[in-house]
Each structure stands twice: as C-alpha cells, then as structure tokens.
C-alpha cells in the first residue's frame, strides 16, 4: 500500500517537473537564443581574424584593441563618466526618496514629476538640450547679453557635465522609486523601538535604514553603473559619431566599429567591457555582503 502511494507520489512529482519544464521552456529558449547564444558568438568573433577565413588568433584582437588609442580614450571617458554618474545617481536618488518619504505637501505630484523624464523620448530631450546649450542656444544668449564669452558646450570639456546632468535627470526618478519602495518595506516596529530608545534621526538612518536598504543600494548602483556604461544615444544625437574627445564613450566606439564593419574589434571591445562590468559588480556584491549580512541574519 505504502509502495503504491510512493509510486503515485513519484509520478505526480515527475508530472509536476515536466509541467514546470514546459512552462519554463519558452523563456529558457528565448534566453538561450537571444542572450546565451549571441554571447558565445561574440566570444567566437573576438578570437578569429575575420568571419570568412575564421582563423583562430588567440588574444591578438584583445591586444590590438587594448592598444588602440580610441578604445583607450573611450574607456577612460566612460570610467570617468561612470565614476561621477553612478554615485551621484545613487546618492541623489536616495536623498530624494528620503525627502519624499516624509509627509510634505504635494508629495505624490513631486514623485510623478520625477518620473516624467522616463516617459519623454530621447529625441525630444535632445532637442530641448540643443535649444538650451547649443552655441547659439538660450544659455549662451544669456551669457553674451551679460558680456560673457559664449561657450561651445559640446565642443569643450563642459560637454561631459551637460551629459551628466541629462543622465541624472533621466535616471533619478526611477532610482528614487526603488528607494521609496525599499524604505517603505523597513519593519515599522524596529523604527518605533529605536524612537522609544531615544535614537537620533541620524542614528536611525545610519544604523537601521541604510542596513535595510543595502540590497536596494546595490541593485540601484548596478543599474546606474550599467546605464552609465551605456550612455550613448544622447551623445550620438547631440554630437554625432565623432564627438569632442571628452564625450567619446565605449558605446560610441562600438557603434562606429559596427558601422565600419569591423566585427572583430566590436566583439573584442564588447567582451572587455563586459569583463570590466562583471569585476565591478562582483566587487559591489562583496561590499554588500559585508555591510548587509547582519540584516539578512
């Protein structure tokens, strides 16, 4: 009797597994076709001389790309931009979330206003930015009216800051929403106990909230890092494929190599960029594990 029940249970489990695989199959197939397979194709392309003769060249493409002046410039610019954009977008997103977590007037309207940049098409944003900071734009008009020299924003080092502002304006809203939802999920009883124990707001923020927010901070940081590495559309639309050198990013490099049909260079650069991101994200996980482990416990 027991044996028959056991067999039935086994059969039921097998059917469940089969059902689960059936449900998962479309997603797995999609992930395999569109993510895993292309990734291996890119690795393959980075190890051959060209798609026709397809001779294995080892790391020759990697050596060539890392020695390429344009790639070096693009990497430095991208790192520089990420080093500014990533912390700013995390910190400012968090500050905004904390402010909007309080009971302030027009709270929901302000939240919505921070989300609107996500809905505006990039082309429209670019148009507005051009009107504002072009050589003949509004800002330069104001400057020259006050006797100051006009600045060619996108053809000077100031261009990076314009792009940084554009990046923050576009991404802060989403980061803020993520932080807000994380803040709301902090257990109220712990916060109440802290108040009863006469903890200061700073202590509550630093000792409790930050600890509970650590996984969200990590997530937002990774998201901001990826977004900052991918900053391209705005720069391309504003300055074309060959911008002033401080605005020349890795994505610009890859786009241009794609246009000139240099798939080896493109694939190799993509792999190097992925490796760099994996290392940085790995480091962020270690940091998060270190600071957030007591909350998880």
């Amino acid at each position: 009797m027991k044996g028959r029940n056991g067999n039935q249970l086994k059969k039921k489990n097998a059917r469940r597994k089969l059902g689960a695989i059936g449900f998962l199959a479309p997603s797995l197939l999609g992930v395999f076709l569109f993510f895993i397979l292309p990734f291996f194709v890119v690795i393959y392309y980075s190890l051959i001389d060209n798609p026709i003769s397809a001779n294995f060249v080892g790391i020759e493409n990697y050596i060539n790309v890392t020695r390429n002046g344009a790639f070096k410039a693009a990497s430095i610019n991208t790192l520089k931009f990420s080093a500014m954009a990533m912390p700013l977008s995390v910190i400012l997103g968090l500050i905004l979330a904390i402010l909007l977590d309080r009971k302030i007037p027009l709270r929901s309207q302000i939240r919505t206003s921070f989300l609107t940049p996500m809905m505006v098409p990039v082309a429209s944003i670019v148009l507005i930015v051009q009107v504002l900071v072009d050589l003949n734009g509004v800002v330069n008009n104001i400057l020259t009216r006050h006797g100051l020299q006009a600045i060619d924003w996108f053809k000077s080092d100031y261009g990076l800051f314009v792009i940084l502002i554009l990046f923050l304006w576009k991404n802060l809203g989403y980061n803020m929403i993520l932080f807000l939802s994380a803040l709301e999920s902090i257990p109220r009883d712990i916060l109440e106990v802290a108040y009863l124990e006469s903890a200061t707001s700073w202590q509550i923020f630093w000792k409790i909230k930050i600890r509970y927010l650590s996984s969200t901070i990590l997530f937002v940081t990774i998201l901001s890092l990826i977004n900052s590495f991918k900053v391209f559309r705005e720069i391309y639309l504003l300055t074309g494929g060959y911008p002033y050198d401080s605005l020349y990013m890795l994505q610009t490099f890859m786009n241009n190599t794609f246009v000139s049909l240099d798939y080896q260079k493109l694939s190799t650069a993509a792999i190097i960029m992925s490796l760099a991101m994996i290392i940085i994200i790995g480091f962020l996980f270690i940091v998060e594990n270190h600071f957030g482990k007591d909350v998880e416990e």
Partner: protein
Amino acid sequence: MKKTFIKVLSIAAIGLLGISLSACGKKDDEVKFDTTEYVTEYVEVEARSEENSYSSSFSLNGDYLTYLKVEYSSFEGEEDSYESNETFKLISKNVKTGEEKQIPIKISESTNAYPGEFRMTKDGSFVGTVMEYSEDFEEVNSFLVNLDGNGSIIKKTNISDSIKADNLYINSLILANDGLVLGNGQDIYKIDFDGKLIGKISTSNYINSISTTPSGKVFVCIDGNQGMNIKSINDKFTDFDQTIDVEGWGSAYGADDESILYCTYRGLQQININTNEKKDLFSWIDVDVDSTNFDSVVKNADGSFTAMYYDYENGKYEIVKIREALDSEKGSKETIVLGTYYIDSDVRRSVVKFNRTNSNARIKVVEYMNDDTISYEDSLKKFTADLGNGAFDLVDLSSSNSIGKYTKALEPLDNYITKDLDKNEYFEKVLEACSYDGKIYAMPKTFSVSTLAISKKHADEIGSWTIKDLVALRKKYSDKTFMERGTQSQALYLALLGSFDTFVDENAGKCNFDSEDFKEALEFAKTFKTDDNFDYDFDSWGAIKTDDILLFDVYISSLEYIQLFDTLADGGIEIIGYPSKDGGKHIINAYSALSITSKSKHKDLAWEFIKSFINEEEGSYGRESFNIHKAKTDAIMKKAMEKELDFEGNEVSKMSWGNGQTDVDIYAATQEEVDMAYEVIEKASSSAGMDDEVVQIILEECQPYFNNQKSVEETAKVIQSRVNIFLQERK
C-alpha cells in the same frame, strides 16, 4: 477541467512564442535575389542612320514592324545651292520570320515635303502624315496621306485647317478604331479617316506618349508638375477623365482592355486602369536589355511582351520578345550579385553583354538608389549593411569615395591581376587610387583627374605652390575674383585637397589640424564670401576668357576639357594642381570601380566579369573618357588629334561647347595639349584621401569660426580632437 485549460493555455503560449521567434528571422526589407524569371529573345533590326540613309517612324503592330527609311544620294550642285536627292521607302518586316517588304513611296511632288509618322493598317495599307512647305518656306501645311499596300497614294487630305494647330509637326500617330489620334507635343487631336476633326485637347505640359487600349480608349503620358501622369481621354474626346500618378519619366502603352503598360528606363510596370493597382513586371537590366530609349512595348496574346528600343552601343534598333521562363530554364546559371548604390551606364552595358553571352553565370544587379529613394544616407547605410552581411559577390564602390573603409569586406585583387593581366598595360596611378595598404581592392574602367589651372600669364606667380604660396597669392589678388565657386567652404576645400596627407597620417592614426599651416588655411578661407552668397549665375568661362578669374578648377575626364580651358584662356593655361608641401598635386577619380567581396562564393566568376568589363571595347556610343588601359587612352588621344575638314579641306570645329553664357569651338587637339594631359595623369596622386567623415567634421567646425563665434585656435583644437578620434579608431 481547470488542468485541461491550463495545459491548453501553456501549449498556446509555447506556440505563440514559437511563431514570434520564427518571425524574428525575416525582415520586411530583406534583399531578395530571385532567379531569372524571364527569357529574352532578340531580333536585331535596323540602324537608325547609316551612310546615305536614316530611318524613322518605327512602330510595332503585333509581329509587324513598320518604319520609314529615307535614302539620299550625295549632295550635288554648286557650293551655294546643294541639293539632296531623297527617296522614301516604307519597310514592313515580320519580326518572327524575318520576312521584309520594301515599298518605295513618293510622298509629294514638292521637294519641300517632309514625312511625319507612318503606320500600317489592318488591311496592309498605310496611313501617315506629311508636312509640306511652300517654295519660299513662308507657308506650311500638314497632310494626311493614305497609301495602298504598294505605296501608291490613294488619298491626300490637307488637315491644317481641320486641326488648326500652331505647330503642324505631328510627332505621334495612333490608329484608333474610329479614326486617328495625332499629337504634336502639347495638343492631342482625333480625326476621322477623312481628316475631319472629332476632338481636340490641349495641355500646358509636354506629352511624352499617346497610346490606346485594344477597345480604343486613348491614354496620354504627360509630364505633370509633380511627376509623371497617365491620363485617359473620355469617349467624346473633349477632356481627360482619369489620372494615374506614376514614378519616374516614362511612356505608357496599351496592354489590354483592363490595363496599360508603363515603361521607364528602369523597367516595366502594368497598371490596372479600373483599380489603379500597379504591378512591377521586371527591370530591363534583369531581362538583359540595355537602353533608356524605348519606342514601343506590346503585350502579346500569350502573355509575353515585345519591346523595341534603340541600342546606343551598336547604333541600331533592337526588338526583344520577353516571356516567362519555363521551370526547366530557371537557375541553370550561377547568380553573381552585384551591389551598387547607383549603376553607371558602362557597368549596365557590360552586365547585359555578359548575361547575354556567358553560359556559366549571370549578374544580378541590386541597386540602392531608385525612384523610391528618399535619403542618400539611409540607402548608403543599407548598402553598407548588406555588404557587411555578405549579400553581394561584386560591388561598385565608385560612389562611396573611400575604399579604405570597406577593405574588411573586400577581396584583394592583386593575385587575379598578376595571373590574368599585364599590370604595365594599365595606368599605375589609377590602380594606386583603388589600393589600400599596398593591396588593390577595386578595378576601375575609366578615370578623370581633378586639378587646378591658371592662365599662363600668371603662372610664374605661384611660387613653389604650397599653402603659404596660395595665401600669398590671395593677398596679392584680394580685389580679383580669385577662384570659381569662391565661397569659404570651397576655398578651404581647395586649400586642403592637395595637402591633406600633411595634416593626416592614417597609418599612424594621427593628425595635426592644430598646426600653423592649417590655421593659415582657415584664415585664407575666411577671406571669401559665405556659402549662402554663392553666385549661381557667375559665368566662369566668360571670366577666364576676359582674365577676370585667377584660378579655375579643371575636371579632366577627356582631352576636350584641357582643350576647352586652353582655348578659353588668352595665351593658354598652365595646369598647376592643388597646393601641397611638394608643389601642385592632381587628384585621380576612378569610375566604375568593381570589387569582389571577401564573402563571395563565386570569386572566380566575379573576376571573370571584371576582366570582361575592363577589357571590353568601347562602342560607338562609348564615352571618350580616359581608360585605365593605356593603349585605349592612347587611341582616344590619337583620335582627338585628327583634324576634321570641310569640303574644301579647311579645318572645322569638332564640337561646340557652351555653358549657356559663353560658347567655345573645339578643334583637333595639339601635341602640346596631349602632352599636357599625359603629364597630368602621370603626376596625379592616387587620391585625395579625404574621408567623407573628416571633411564633414572640418566643414561643420569651421562655420562658427567663419561666423566670428570662435577663434581660429579654438576651431583648430576641436577639429584636431574630433579627427584624431576618428583616425585612432580606424587604426
């Protein structure tokens, strides 16, 4: 029940994903390379003009071709009263059997009578128009002439009063069921067989063709103000009753009672006159027809098409019958795909010739600029993407202007050239223009040289002809028109064209646009008028003649260009080239430059086509441009030196050239001019090497400087920064 529902739902979800995944593999705008769908049969017809004869009024009616042949004997009489002795023949030829009937006709007693259009009627008789002038040429009349099958005039009716036309020259004649439809360019008349007017329609635009459907509905193809229109005429012949918009410049022909054929130089389209639905039938190049001048297209009862066109190459009319290929006839040859942004006439001619004669392969042309092209850049991007994806075996990169950009997708031709050709027989500099990194990637057929000239009287003022000398010359002649198209951008372009390699080192991936020389070039360009003030009416030829211009661009694609400027300038010209650190520099432009793609699976067949293309003899209509083959260019030069004489042995001009304001007669070339041409070719540099992207950056960044918004240092710094990235990336 619930479980079944979930199962069905999950199966549906998987199916849906499968469908969506399969759809990902195909794009709407995917390039399709079909096999040969049509078979073309050829009938060579008749030369339009031969010694002592010419033919006109060609018309095709079923299997019968009718045309008028005018034969004339040599000019006779005294010097001031030459007379020609003309005889007229109507030729009726069965294009199927080759059977030909020649019918001598006498159109008028008057010697001032000129035949118009003639057609053969169903009963084998003929009808036509004749224009007759009075003895003093003061009066003119148009006649309708009916001839029997032997060419004897049955009836001759004066229709001048009936049609009351300002222009009595009838250039269209259509046989309708109940009369004749005549056209003179802007008016359409319908007359009965007795010459009585039935109806008249006048238009303000040019009528390109008149045709009828079998049931007698008359259609005209008119140059509308925004493209071509096909208009049908109502039954009473009082007005148009339908308009169909069509693309390109073409002619319409009746197909059947439901549809008409619209023929352009690209291909044939069938248009349903009830629904206006258009169906592309074929492109002419795909059915091995090379012509832009079609006289008639007929749809036959068996669904095939007969087309008659003028073959410029051979100077003859040709009739082709085009029918759908049988399954057994399809795919018997390898298909070589030739991708091109725009197919030039030389390549087109060769493709047709190759496809007609080669038993192993056919060339399929994929052209990216067509009547639907809106954006040059988008079409070029698509062309580049398809090139990268291995869609072609052959490419014509003449229009892209930078072979270096595509070398990764191209096969070096050096081995093929060494194996099959003697490199010494070809102009070395032209081959260099198609090379990158020491390898030849394209084989052009013809070339031209862009350079700069100055009147001989100022030639000793140019110094060693560097940018500094150019700037000094500008300062000296600041009050004179310095150069043709003398705007800021053009001036900068002129200053950089010869010196580009001093500012850019592609191999090292470096540039020095922040150098003093470049800043000087910028300052030089700024002294010219802005691009907005370009003077489109400036008569540069007139200015050269009166010595009111100092430097002029000379674009030498044939010897006549050197002769033209040498004749214009009082005392002749000196070709000085574009200023550079090594003195004057001439730039080679290669045309019809064909390359084999590295992904091609038919490289040998592709090379076979290139070889036949460059070795092809020039036809009678061939351009007299410089050929990459030295011997062919030698022959062109020799021909240019031959004098043309009149009856008394005096030299007369070979051609007259005009720009609308100034005319120049060109005589036989002198040895000095030929030597000048060879010297320019031999000294020419491989190419300007100015990448489009770099030119774009420079011109874009200069504008704020020209508009006084930036200093020369700032401008040079930005250009240096942007171009440097471009070069580093390409390294």
